[in-house]
């Protein structure tokens, strides 16, 4: 696994990668939350197969993004329908700050690997 030093804070020698278990734990096309090292992370399983991970709470009024509707790599917050891009975290049609995003991938065994 190749990483460039620029990707990470210099004080942090290597990314911490955490196995969140089999992808089937999250229903297809939905999201769920994980508490990882004191941070609440929303993990999304897009129907097309990709995974995304963002901060769990909507910057607008702290709506639970994991309960939102996702599709086309976007999420709609369930409280007031604010939209965000899942891969970049960027807001769509609203002026919230971008969501914090995390690197996430699927292992060959079908397990969710989150980099923190």
């Amino acid at each position, binding site marked *: 696994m190749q990483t460039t030093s620029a990707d990470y804070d210099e004080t942090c020698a290597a990314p911490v990668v955490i196995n969140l278990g089999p992808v089937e734990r999250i229903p297809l096309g939905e999201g769920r939350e994980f508490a990882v090292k004191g941070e609440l992370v929303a993990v999304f399983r897009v*129907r097309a197969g990709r995974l995304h991970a963002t901060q769990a709470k909507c910057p607008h009024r702290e709506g639970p993004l994991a309960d939102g509707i996702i599709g086309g790599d976007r999420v709609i917050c369930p409280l007031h329908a604010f939209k965000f891009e899942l891969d970049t975290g960027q807001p769509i049609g609203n002026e919230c700050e971008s969501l914090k995003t995390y690197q996430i991938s699927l292992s060959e065994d079908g397990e969710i690997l989150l980099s923190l």
Partner: protein
Amino acid sequence: MNGKQRLVVIGNGMAGARLVEDVVARSGGDLFDIVIFGDEPYGNYNRILLSSVLSGTHDPKDIFINPLGWYEENNVKLHAGVRVTGIDRENRLVHGANGIDENYDYLVIATGSSPFVPPLEGLKKDDGEGFTDGVFVFRTLDDCDLITRFAEGGKRAAVIGGGLLGLEAARGLLNLGAQVHVVHLMSHLMEVQLDADAGATLKRSMEAMGVQVHLNKATTAILGNDRVRGLQFKDGSQLECEMVVISAGIRPNVALAREAGLLVERGIVVGDDLKCVNDSDIFAVGECAQHRGQVYGLVAPLWEQTAVLAERLTGHNPNAAYQGSKVSTKLKVMGIELAVMGSKEPEGTDEVVSYVETGRGIYKKLIVRDGQLAGAILLGDGTNDPLVWQAFDRGTQLPENRAALLFSLAEESGPIETASMPDSAQVCNCNGVSKGQILAAVNAGHRSLKAVCDATRAGTGCGSCKPQVQRILELACDGALVEDASVHYYVSGVALRKPELIQAIREQNLRSVSAVFNALAGGKEDPSSKVGLASLLSTIWGKDYEDERDARFINDRVHANIQKDRTFSVVPRIYGGVTSPDELRRIAHVAEKYDVKMVKITGGQRIDLLGIQKEDLPNVWRDLGMPSGHAYTKAFRTCKTCVGTDFCRYGVGDSTGLGVKIEKRFQGIESPHKMKLAAAGCPRNCSEATTKDLGAVAIEGGAWEIYIGGAAGSQVRKGDLLATVGAHDEVLKYMGRFIQYYRENAKYLERTYGFVERLGIEKLRLILVDDSEGICGRLDADIQAAVEAYVDPWQEAHEPMHPSQFVNLLTIPAEAAPGLHQIEKTFGD
């Protein structure tokens, strides 16, 4: 050479300058060196506002769209005050006065038009040079200036021509303190736009303002030698005056094009690509162009043309085509609001709807063809113009009650109020969006209702401010409104209207939301469209629908209503609002056991338990032992009742019994939006049945009135009487029939009140009571099937769809704990 091509534009008026603006906005400055010739020595100005300059309400400097500096900033070379004398097509060269020549790769002719001056005796000075003193035309800023200076001191002024421009000139002269006469050749004013009655109404309004109107008058001569003294008419009469403004129509400026050998008829002939038919590097736009036999003299078509041409020239859309414009115009004639569109007289079997109020100078006329608006004249009252405009532009089916289009039935703030509102005024009360924010979005290029709403979030809450947002949009873009095709789609992510979408779903046997995206949207999943599609598929396929839970809103995944703190509210079904001590005990027990934060009686006569954690939902349902009240979804909600005949001394019908039957039958039936029902035991209507989506009211004689399309939420509307029937079963039959028809035909998120108003009660009665389409039997069977397919969703307490259906937070597997080690194992191949 910088490798750019040369784009030369002849004409710096409304069309030429707009084209350059459109090209620059599409980064055309990177492709072209742009040169523009204008024979007036200014930047470009809004010619429509000239009459306001004349009447003194606008300063000349206020009507400039682009001052000279704009051209410099955008690297556009402007030859201001340089008249073009010839086009040399062979050498691709434009000759300007003073020896200025410019080469072109592409040439756009936007020479506009000039006033038509009839050959009157005494028009010119004796030496033949220039008009007799006191004679003017009205076309340019310079004309304005000359007229203003001459009119000083309360002169008597005659305007020849009672068309739009003539009346605008008359208004200007009136404000300058002149005594104004309008002399018109025809039998009524503005005969191009108005019918005789509207013309007569306008004449009365103008006379009330002090303008004298002379109809059927052919002017033959201008009297006086060096100075105007009066007008001589063909019928022998005369009119004394000191000045004359000639406004007898305009003629396209086509001399340059004709001399250059381009095909010219009334205007320069162009195709849908706006190219001259016999030179594919030369284009024409605006009042000098003739497209499909039409020469347009209004600003909106011209803007459509320049946008198309800019798309083509810059390669943004090389296939953009101009299809002609629906002619519609909105203007103020001497301060009187006027909107005109389409045909002004009926043809064949057209229906005419008209309203006249001579006292206030109001005249309204609609021409209806096949249920759609084919034309309209709206004079003197602009309140409902946006609605009429929209119906005309979009070709929508008009409401059965045509009056709804002419008058604001519910008093809402009109366009005048919208126009005079300060920018800080809040328009969207759900999301706190001000008029200023909406204007800013329009100015930033969002020119359709959907684009403005998406950009500002205005109208995305309860939606009741959308008409006002639309009005602000119309004011701000001054007619250059863009219609977003997706407003017609059932959902924005699949480019089909509801009937075509249903047909495609049936034909291709699409039973899940993902199947619809794959087959009908090129595989592109749109999150905003998922819920609407799920609702439709469930209605079409019933129990054969392939339910993908991710297409549901969170409420429908967990069968409860999400609250702002991520807890949920639970409302068990209490049929007809009639409960029992035993049910109440169970509810009380649950409230205590699960630490419910609030126990609330709802408006629908049931009990809401607020503040329940998602994880507790299945246990709550099990402990309640009551079915779901569906208070969280787009479906049949509840049937409110009064106590009816059992106890009430006024009751004439068993409303509680009916309410219970209604609820047992229709519980959980999904629909485009929520449905709230009521049954009232007498016309006192204590359960408010006439303002419900469906309501039944008992009347003396053992009968029930069935109302549909009532509302008492963000909109208030009294329901329309669908039918009066005898027994409970009959009420259930007609209600079921309407519900099924609504399920199949309403747009997603269209409440019954919008749906009933859109179709009209007369039409609905024909279909649902008289069976005019022969579908009642089928509707009855389909609603019966939906009733039979009903399953209480709270049964999922016993059998969840997925192990994490009611879980917010998933735990991290223990062995993952130091993490890094685990990963190396995973990647260790």
